[in-house]
């Protein structure tokens, strides 16, 4: 699969959009250590956003999966509606129940019509065939009450990537209205599960953040676990039982080849990337004792970071790469620790009863998501100092959190008692908006990548 994105914030292709993209509003002030920075979604719940079909200047066939330019225009509005709907923040109305604007109305909306429909915000856009196989897709956000344009942008996309323009438009709308960083234009790596509970087939799979463009990467002959996208999406590091023993491999998404991260007679597992993609953090068990190591992603000598006689495992870098949060049972049970990236200054941060496992540092750096084990398994967050612990979910077994690129949503997998069925879920930081992601088969070990380059 090609990740080369012929994205042009193109002023050439769309003269009407010559205005520069306004700088994204600064995110709300970072939370202080103990303060709980929860998005107050109450005001947004009532914010009606109308998203009618994006008209086209000429309805011609395209190479996209959606059909002609007119069909693409309708599909774009549907994708944007689903994006904005599924996160509990807005009340979007999709193209099915709305009139289709003319191409002229895209830049001069009929605000009276939209006021009558009780829309607070209006998203318009257009689709144009460039004649060279590519499409130009425009996106405009209007404040209906003020009768004002808030933002606009346009993207030139290859037919295979038409949905990315919808996610870019969703990101533009979401960022402008929420003040948060974008996240829709991103991908998820995960493990697809099939078969009986005592002999699951587990395959590496990838998909867009909304579940579209799903693709299996491995065949299932070898058990595959715990994938992570590299920051540039060119590689996926994951665990495979290829040849019978658990080892970490790097899969090249462009070449479709893979290689061992380290040559070792010992099991290597729990791989994670450093934020700059230069290091791979992993765990290795030597004679029953597991410690955390790091190795250059390009190969080379491994460096041991922990040396406790207990199980030190997993880990996740702080966004600036200076610290690592990991899990250890050196105290007698699984708890969360923070250390410097070179392994120095190891400190336990979880002190609230129960066990704390699988810590993941938020891309905003202000929170650590983890699996809280006290009877059942719940997803919880705490500050990097261990304060402000809050449980976000209430499942029987919710495990392995991964952050949205903007640090506002936590994805995880949920296992059903008895049946062992698994599925991917996500929840926002309020804990109120939880939903299941569609996957073709059972799913576990999600890993949400950054916003696409």
């Amino acid at each position, binding site marked *: 699969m090609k990740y080369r994105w012929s994205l042009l914030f193109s002023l050439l292709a769309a003269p009407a959009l010559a205005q520069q993209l306004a700088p994204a509003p600064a995110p709300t002030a970072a939370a202080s250590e103990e303060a709980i920075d929860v998005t107050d979604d109450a005001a947004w719940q009532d914010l009606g956003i109308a998203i009618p079909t994006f008209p086209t200047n000429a309805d011609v066939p395209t190479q996209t999966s959606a059909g002609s330019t007119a069909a693409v225009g309708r599909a774009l509005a549907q994708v944007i509606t689903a994006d904005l709907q599924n996160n509990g923040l807005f009340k979007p109305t999709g193209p099915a129940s709305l009139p289709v604007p003319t191409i002229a109305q895209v830049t001069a909306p009929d605000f009276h019509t939209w006021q009558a429909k009780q829309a607070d915000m209006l998203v318009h856009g257009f689709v144009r065939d460039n004649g060279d196989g590519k499409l130009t897709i425009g996106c405009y956000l209007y404040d209906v009450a003020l009768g004002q344009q808030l933002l606009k942008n346009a993207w030139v996309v290859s037919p295979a990537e038409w949905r990315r323009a919808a996610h870019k438009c969703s990101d533009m709308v979401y960022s402008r209205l929420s003040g948060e960083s974008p996240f829709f234009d991103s991908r998820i790596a995960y493990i697809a599960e099939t078969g009986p509970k005592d002999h699951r087939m587990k395959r590496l799979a990838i998909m867009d953040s909304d579940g579209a463009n799903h693709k299996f990467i491995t065949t299932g002959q070898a058990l595959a676990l715990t994938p992570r996208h590299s920051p540039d999406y060119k590689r996926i590091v994951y665990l495979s039982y290829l040849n019978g023993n658990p080892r970490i491999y790097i899969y090249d998404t462009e070449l479709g080849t893979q290689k061992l991260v380290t040559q070792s007679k010992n099991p290597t597992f729990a791989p994670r990337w450093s934020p700059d993609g230069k290091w791979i953090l992993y765990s290795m068990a030597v004679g*029953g004792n597991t410690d955390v190591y790091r190795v250059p992603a390009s190969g080379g000598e491994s460096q041991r970071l922990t040396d406790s006689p207990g199980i030190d495992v997993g880990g996740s870098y702080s966004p600036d790469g200076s610290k690592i949060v990991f899990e250890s049972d050196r105290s007698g049970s*699984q708890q969360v620790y923070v250390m410097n990236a070179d392994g120095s200054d190891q400190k336990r941060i979880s002190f609230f009863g129960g066990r704390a496992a699988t810590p993941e540092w938020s891309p905003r750096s202000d929170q650590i998501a983890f699996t809280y084990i006290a009877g059942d398994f719940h997803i919880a967050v705490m500050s990097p100092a261990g304060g402000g612990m809050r449980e976000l979910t209430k499942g029987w077994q919710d495990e*392995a959190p991964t952050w949205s690129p903007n640090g506002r949503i936590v994805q995880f997998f949920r296992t059903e008692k008895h049946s062992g069925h698994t599925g991917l879920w996500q929840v926002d930081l309020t804990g109120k908006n939880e939903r299941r992601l569609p996957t073709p088969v059972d799913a576990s070990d999600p890993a949400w990548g950054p916003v696409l380059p």
Partner: protein
Amino acid sequence: MLRSSRTFALLLIGASALAACSPKPPKMLPPDPGPAAAPTRSTTETQPTVQGPAPGSQADFAATLMGRDTIYFDTDKYNVDSADAAALQVQAQWLMKYPSKRATIEGHCDERGTRDYNIALGDRRANAAKNYLVSLGIDASRLTTVSYGKERPVATGSNEEAWAKNRRSVTITID
């Protein structure tokens, strides 16, 4: 978890009375007599003398061990208790009898643990069994370990009985 004290107590008691009945939840049932005890087949071919598995094979190991190829652990534990020790001694006897045979010890966990931790814990369990066999005189170079974490349960329920069966190490000889 809070079961270590119990395990410890059993370890002490068990040390003086190895033959004590197993405290472990999965009871070792005698093998099903099966058709071997029912030779009254209607097909009257020349009955071959009932052959056991080839001596020194994995089938022979499994038949000899009668369930003692597997040892069980308490929640989050990897210590070898008296019942485990008794089973490992029988394993060691077999391995001594066939000194050219190698074995793999699989470590497993129940589903009530996080994935990465369980791989580490399964590795601990497999190594605990391996180290015990080595302490009984088995050459370490004959034994390899592999952890499956929680990926390969034998009991599929979500209850204490099933979990107890899944917290295990299994010795498999290599034919």
